[in-house]
Each structure stands twice: as structure tokens, then as C-alpha cells.
């Protein structure tokens, strides 16, 4: 009994340590962690927690081998292991909002494995909170410049042949605090308004054909059933091309914060046009020029101008490990990250470890899909001297991810600027500490 309570205390301590750290694979304080893992391995028989640290010591049989596990509950929605409690979304903590109705939270992309973001970690952006909508009560209407206005129940919509496609989703404001000087510490803060999953729904073109769109219609207005009735004008060409009316993601019905029970999904375009809690689509012959497409989601340009309807999310990449607040040790370092493009597939990713003087082509991990997160990796032997690392994406159109300097020649970088797809460097100092090096 005495040993058992001691080991419970150690496990509790280890968990607190893990929770305080940003990452298991790149702990902030490797020395302390190693020490603790060793004492754990010896005292509590948790050998294998960190193989490297246990070098020279005989591995004990894990306690989990020596007892029965927990029984299966009669009903359960499975949750992550309690040791993974540190993997979570974070609300804005750089630009501090004074209210949390119109707010956003970031996906921990540095803790994401593979290209699929778990549903509970898909980033959020709401304009007036998360509505609770009963799918039995929800209605979706198509009207305006159509032959016959139509209304659909959720059951109606789910009778159509569905399509499931992998796409990334990125907020146009991703990175808006970090253009000219570092404001954010972690890649979750700099790039976490980015997620990717398999979206399931009905091609919007099927329903538009059913309603019979007028030949004069050129735009559609999509509007949500939320407290902001968030709405955007979208060209009909895109609506007919690859837009999906989505009710499921990652194999289950949408989470409330991601549009349950129904959302629009506009592949490759800024997230806010993929209207959540979608209640209607109205066809018209011009854009509506609403607040959300004039005063918001527009780009400051030279001579006091603003660029609007900049829908496509251009090719972009970022190194997710090593990244801000992580610590690396001299020797082999596996550089990994994500690349994506709203206008096609990723053709190549280049990585620099010398601040941009030379670049090496990274390996792309399959699958490499259209308008989808693509993982890249490059093995690097860090010699322990200060370094600046960054990645650069090339997409299937031949477009090369620009530097902030390149972007600055064309746009005005003033205030909170949207559509930041600049190359994003991380600095590594002689102690191995990684920090935001945008400047």
C-alpha cells in the first residue's frame, strides 16, 4: 500500500509536469524531465516513459502489465488519456478580446499527428457565440434568383448521396498579430487558426440545380442561424464548382462550435465564408457588400485602399517542430511541419536552417491532396550553434510562398492584417531554446 501511494504521487507529479509543458516530444526543460523520468522509472516501475533517459538501468515491468485495466462502461464516448490533458485549444492570448462572444481559439497544430485535426481541436471563430440548434427544427432554404425556392430539413438533406473530402480550413486572420515583430510565442498562436479533416455533405450544385438557378444569378449570399446571422457573398462559380453543404466532419456529426447541424464548406477559401449553422442561401446578381466583406476580412493596401473578396488562401507552410517555446538538443533533429494551398496541391516544400541563405527540399508525407494539409519533414544534425529555420511551400500552380518583405511590397502592413502567408522563421539559441523570429 505504501509503495502504491508513493507511485500514485509520482504519477500525479509527472502529469502536472506534462500538463505544464507544451509538448512531450519537445519538453521545455529536458534536464528536469529526464531526472524525473529516471526517478519514476526506478521508483515506480514506469520504465519506457523515456527510453533514452533510462539508459543503463534495467527496465522494470510496467505496473499496467501487472493488473487488470478499467472495465468497459456500459455506454461511453471515448475521451483522450488523462495524460493528454495539455493538448487543447487556446483562446486568443496575444490580442486580448474584452468579450468572448466574437472570439477565436487556436488548434494545437504542434501536437497534431498526421493531417487530421480531431474534432475537439478544430479551431473556432464565432461572431456571436455558439448557438444550440435542434436538428429536428433546423431548416435550410435556397431562394432569391431561382426558379423555385426550396426549403430542406436535415432529414431531407441526408437522403442525398453524400461526398466526403479532405480539406484544410484556415481563418483569414491566421497570423495577424505576427507580421513585423514577434507577438506570439507558440506556433499554436501564430498558425493555429488552421485545421484539417474529412468533411461530409452534399455538393451544393446538386441542390442549386434542383432549385433551378436563374441564368442572371452571379452571386449567392450564405447566412447563418447564429446570433450574428453571419453572412457572406460568394460567386456562383465557386458555389457550383466544389462547395459542399456539410453536416459531418471526421466521421461524426459536426460539433456545435463547428456549425452543427449544417454548415457551408468552401474549399481552399478563407474560413469565414464557410458559413456555420447555415440557414439560407439567397441567389442574386451582385455581391451584397455587407460589414463582413467591407469593414472586416479586407486587406489594407497602399494609398489608403482596401482589397475585398480576397477569398483564396494562398500557399503557405510552417515548421511545427521545433517551434516556439520548444527546446532542442544538439544532434539529430527531425524538422516537421505543414504546408497547404487553397488553389491546389503542394508540389514541394523547402527548408532552410541558415536563415534563408540556402534551402533544401523536404520530404512530403503521403497523402498529398488538393486544398489539404500536407506534412513535410527534413532530418537535420544541429551542431549546437544558433540557427534560424524556416519552410517555404510551392504549390501546383508554381506559386512560391513569399517572405513578409515580398508581401510588404504589394500591400500595406498596418493594423491587424489578414491573409498572412509569409515565410515564418524560428530562431534557435545556443541553449536550444526556440523562439518566434518574424521581424
Amino acid at each position: 500500500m505504501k509503495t502504491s501511494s508513493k507511485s500514485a504521487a509520482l504519477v500525479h507529479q509527472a502529469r502536472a509536469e506534462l500538463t505544464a509543458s507544451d509538448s512531450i516530444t519537445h519538453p521545455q526543460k529536458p534536464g528536469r524531465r529526464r531526472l524525473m523520468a529516471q526517478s519514476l522509472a526506478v521508483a515506480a516501475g514506469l520504465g519506457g516513459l523515456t527510453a533514452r533517459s533510462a539508459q543503463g538501468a534495467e527496465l522494470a515491468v510496467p505496473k499496467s502489465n501487472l493488473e487488470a485495466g478499467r472495465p468497459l462502461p456500459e455506454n461511453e464516448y471515448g475521451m483522450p488519456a488523462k495524460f493528454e490533458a495539455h493538448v487543447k485549444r487556446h483562446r486568443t492570448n496575444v490580442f486580448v478580446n474584452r468579450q468572448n462572444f466574437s472570439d477565436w481559439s487556436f488548434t494545437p497544430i504542434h501536437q497534431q499527428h498526421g493531417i487530421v485535426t480531431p474534432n475537439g481541436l478544430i479551431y473556432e471563430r464565432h461572431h456571436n457565440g455558439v448557438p444550440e440548434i435542434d436538428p429536428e427544427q433546423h431548416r435550410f432554404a435556397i431562394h432569391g434568383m431561382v426558379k423555385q425556392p426550396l426549403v430542406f430539413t436535415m432529414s431531407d438533406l441526408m437522403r442525398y448521396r453524400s461526398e466526403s473530402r479532405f480539406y484544410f480550413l484556415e481563418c483569414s486572420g491566421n497570423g495577424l498579430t505576427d507580421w513585423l515583430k514577434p507577438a506570439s510565442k507558440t506556433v499554436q498562436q501564430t498558425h493555429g487558426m488552421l485545421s484539417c479533416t474529412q468533411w461530409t455533405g452534399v455538393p451544393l450544385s446538386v441542390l442549386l440545380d434542383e432549385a433551378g438557378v436563374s441564368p442572371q444569378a452571379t452571386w449567392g449570399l450564405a447566412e447563418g442561424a447564429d446570433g450574428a446571422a453571419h453572412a457572406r457573398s460568394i460567386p456562383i462559380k465557386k458555389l457550383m464548382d466544389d462547395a459542399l453543404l456539410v453536416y459531418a466532419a471526421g466521421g461524426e456529426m459536426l460539433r456545435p462550435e463547428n456549425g452543427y447541424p449544417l454548415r457551408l464548406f468552401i474549399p481552399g477559401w478563407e474560413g469565414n465564408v464557410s458559413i456555420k449553422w447555415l440557414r439560407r442561401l439567397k441567389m442574386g446578381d451582385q455581391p451584397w457588400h455587407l460589414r463582413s466583406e467591407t469593414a472586416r476580412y479586407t486587406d489594407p493596401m497602399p494609398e489608403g485602399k482596401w482589397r475585398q473578396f480576397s477569398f483564396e488562401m494562398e500557399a503557405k507552410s510552417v515548421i511545427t517542430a521545433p517551434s516556439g517555446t520548444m527546446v532542442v538538443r544538439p544532434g539529430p533533429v527531425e524538422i516537421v511541419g505543414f504546408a497547404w494551398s487553397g488553389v491546389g496541391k503542394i508540389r514541394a516544400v523547402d527548408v532552410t536552417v541558415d536563415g534563408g541563405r540556402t534551402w533544401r527540399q523536404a520530404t512530403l508525407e503521403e497523402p498529398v491532396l488538393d486544398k489539404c494539409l500536407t506534412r513535410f519533414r527534413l532530418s537535420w544534425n544541429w551542431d549546437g550553434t544558433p540557427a534560424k529555420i524556416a519552410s517555404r511551400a510551392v504549390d501546383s500552380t508554381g506559386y512560391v510562398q513569399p517572405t513578409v518583405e515580398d508581401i510588404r511590397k504589394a500591400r500595406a502592413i498596418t493594423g491587424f492584417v489578414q491573409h498572412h502567408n509569409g515565410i515564418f522563421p524560428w530562431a534557435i539559441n545556443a541553449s536550444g531554446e526556440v523562439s518566434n523570429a518574424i521581424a
Partner: protein
Amino acid sequence: MQSLNVQLLGLGTIALAILTGCAGSGPTSGTTASAHGGGVRHAHGQPISEADLARWNIDVITKTGAGLPAGAGTVSQGKEVYAAKCAVCHGDNAAGGPMFGSMVGGIGSFQTNTRVLTPGSMYPYAPILFDYVRRAMPLTQPQSLTNDEVYAVSGYILHLNGLLPATATVNAQTLASLRMPNRDGFIVDDRPDTKAQRCMSNCRPL
């Protein structure tokens, strides 16, 4: 066997062509035959009239004012509506409050390094204010204001921005005809606006 397959294929093609020809024009409930997806065309939408969608139909084409409803309000009525419904978050005189920043001023600031975004400085068309207030404000009770109240409070905000006199009465015509300072401030997406090269060695440092 080979010739039989060809014959069957040929028959299938003809059959599909006939079914396609029979596919109903216009919306119908249930399924009808079609060349798509295994010969069955889904059509499950229920016809609805625009009249039955009237309470959802709240959008305004802000450039022309199309969609603005009947009704009117004065700037002074708007001041009262503002005090009762808006000031708690936006502050007195729309100068900024505990939740949101100022909604007044900024006209002319876009030529400087600090652009101040307010309805007065930013909106290219005045009906944007009506559309947004009607659909989204007050945050805790959206779509609770009457059209007259929305006209009135829109007029008050525009007045505070120096764009309407204190004596103004605001209706659809007032908003549609008001020329906003940033009317010509927008350009349409012209990206890609960078032409980065894929330099691999001897490149300019980041």
C-alpha cells in the same frame, strides 16, 4: 459472350438516355430517374414561397439599398435607442466602452500609418450599418429592434460621425443616397501579388 456484352451495354445506354429524357424538370419531392448516380435523381427540397421566407429575408444589397424595409427614425430617437440598448457595451456617444472600441471618427486616417476603422470611416455604403445592426445587434438580443429603431440608431451613429445633421430623419432613401467617405476605397482581389522565386543557394537572408 463478347458480342452479348456489347449488346447489353448498348441497351443500357439507350435505357439511360430515355430515363434522362424523362427526368422531371423543376423540383419534385422524392426521386426521379436520371443519368446521374446509378439512375436515380434525388430531389427532396420542399417548395416554399418568398412570402413564407419574409422573416428570414433580412439582407440588404448595400450598394443600392435594395432590401431596406419601410420605416423611419430620427437622429434624436436614435440617441435614446442607443442609450438604452448600445451604450452598455459601446460607451457614451459611441466613443468606446467596456466591450468595444470607438465607432466614431477615423475619416481620413487611412492615408496614415494608423488606420482607424469605424462605420463612418470604413463603410462604403450607409445601408451596411442598417443591415448589420438589424441582423446582429444588440449582441445579447439580436433581431430584437424594430425597423424604425434600426433606422434611428443608424442615423445617430452616422450623425456622430459627422455624416448626417442632428435634425435628420432616416429612412431607406436617406441611407441609399448618402455618399460615404470610403465609397471608392475598395479594390477587388488581384492576387497573386507576389512573385517569389525558389532560390536554393546564395539567397537573400530572411
